[in-house]
């Protein structure tokens, strides 16, 4: 028998499950790892956590940000007192296939919509096997960050497309952190963020800022063509042109694209990320969780390229957010304000202009201070009306729970236990 994941010493006192969703005819296999709530699993809500990339493993979110343990320099787990499973059962799913411990005999999916079908099937079977996580009417939320700003709206609308009577679970809300959701309204924010208008000093020379401004119209024209046709032939050049013109000037400085205060060091700009790879590649760890691939990698850049060349990057998936809001699903868009690549300015811009049934009222709302319940400190700025909430989180980079763990936990708990108010 495969050893129990509990032997790893990661929250050994809570129930946890790992395994695979198999898609037989396509030879696809999705890895998941679930940790029960440390508090009251019979009544606490359930959260599905998704990392982005595209092509990055959700286990990086587990060990780097919000799971019950991080991994230290000695490649051993360190208890995280601010884990998101303090008051919720949390599922980490490696998707799409060929990411993390997930694998496929084929090349796998290359766009967000196709990935959504598999995630729905996973949730149906998960809640069939573990009805105790829905039996008492527990809420279910999908949370994630970065490219999950694409995934989550689409996955959520896929779930809603199935009648409630046929589902083993209800979708209660979604949370998107530092996401890429509406490129047309987010790409104009790269230049101000890099050039001193995002709350941190400029990191580019004035001529580079000018060059970014000069190329913006062309970039937005291409994104607009992509929005209109949604054709790979329009969306691919938009991605290549805009990423090179708007993101590369910053990348070339050697600064951390996920945190404007830092330099880019090691794999994915954080040297500690390597500890996770080293840990998950230990034989006894793979044995305990039942991993079926011999090598774990945090991010699969082939998948990243596949999504880029499928034209997925620039597609207007924000339309799915409008759909969710119009169906009264609460949506929290949060953004750590030190991130460059999916920065708070861009996230504010797109939420301000998003069309939905209460868009006019949302636009009129004032921006308020957010005082986190757990720390009782001014921790951000919030704008909210009915189902839509935008939250700027002070001091957070791309991965908010990594930089401000206590405030991030406070945000989650205020949202899922406080009737979706921040």
């Amino acid at each position: 028998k495969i050893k129990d994941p509990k032997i790893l010493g990661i929250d050994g006192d809570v129930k946890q499950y790992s395994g695979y969703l198999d898609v037989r005819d396509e030879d696809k296999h999705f890895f998941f790892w679930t940790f029960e709530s440390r508090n009251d699993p019979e009544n606490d809500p359930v959260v599905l956590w998704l990392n982005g990339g595209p092509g990055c493993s959700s286990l990086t979110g587990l060990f780097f940000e919000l799971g019950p343990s991080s991994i230290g320099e000695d490649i051993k787990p360190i208890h995280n007192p601010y884990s998101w499973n303090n008051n919720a059962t949390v599922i980490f799913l490696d998707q799409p296939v060929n990411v993390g411990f997930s694998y496929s005999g084929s090349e796998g999916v290359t766009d967000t919509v196709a990935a959504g079908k598999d995630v729905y099937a996973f949730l149906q079977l998960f809640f069939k096997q573990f009805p105790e996580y829905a039996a008492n009417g527990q809420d279910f939320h999908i949370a994630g960050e970065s490219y999950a700003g694409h995934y989550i709206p689409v996955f959520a609308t896929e779930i809603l497309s199935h009648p409630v009577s046929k589902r083993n679970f209800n979708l209660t809300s979604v949370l998107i952190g530092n996401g890429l959701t509406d490129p047309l309204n987010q790409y104009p924010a790269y230049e101000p963020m890099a050039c001193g208008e995002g709350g941190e000093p400029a990191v580019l020379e004035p001529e580079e800022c000018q060059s970014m401004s000069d190329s913006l119209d062309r970039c937005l024209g291409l994104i607009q063509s992509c929005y209109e046709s949604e054709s790979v032939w329009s969306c691919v050049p938009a991605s290549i042109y805009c990423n090179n013109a708007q993101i590369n000037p910053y990348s070339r400085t050697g600064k951390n694209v996920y945190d404007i205060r830092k330099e880019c060091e090691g794999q994915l700009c954080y040297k500690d990320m390597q500890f996770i790879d080293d840990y998950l590649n230990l034989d006894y760890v793979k044995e305990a969780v039942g991993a079926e691939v011999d090598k774990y990698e945090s991010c699969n850049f082939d998948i990243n390229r596949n999504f880029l060349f499928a034209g997925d990057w620039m597609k207007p998936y924000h339309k799915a957010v409008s759909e969710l809001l119009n169906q009264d699903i609460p949506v929290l868009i949060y953004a750590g304000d030190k991130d460059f690549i999916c920065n708070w300015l861009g996230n504010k811009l797109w939420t301000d202009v998003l069309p939905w049934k209460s868009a006019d009222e949302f636009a009129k709302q004032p921006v308020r201070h957010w005082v986190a319940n757990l720390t009782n400190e001014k921790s951000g700025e919030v704008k909210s009306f009915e189902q839509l909430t935008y939250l700027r989180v002070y001091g957070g980079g791309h991965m908010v729970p990594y930089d401000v763990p206590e405030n991030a936990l406070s945000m989650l708990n205020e949202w899922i236990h406080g009737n979706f108010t921040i």
Partner: protein
Amino acid sequence: LSFQQPFAFEEHGSSLLEKAIEAWKQDPKAVAGLMSDEVRKSWDELPLKFPAEISQMQFVTKPKDPSAIFTRKQWDATVESEDLENYQLRVN
């Protein structure tokens, strides 16, 4: 080096767009009908504007090496559902 890269496509007699059409096994005539002049122009300009990046582009991904996969058999539970015939969940 970068300055030379755009011409690498011409030396092989194909543009970036032609390379993409070939790699993705598309019909060039059908593709031409899908693009506005502006978008078509952008395909032509990309190698000139970003030579280093474009020269490193790969259009096709290799499948995962089968020798890197080993299936385990002894799971605590295997779950199926009538309405999801193609799927199963294995749980430890």
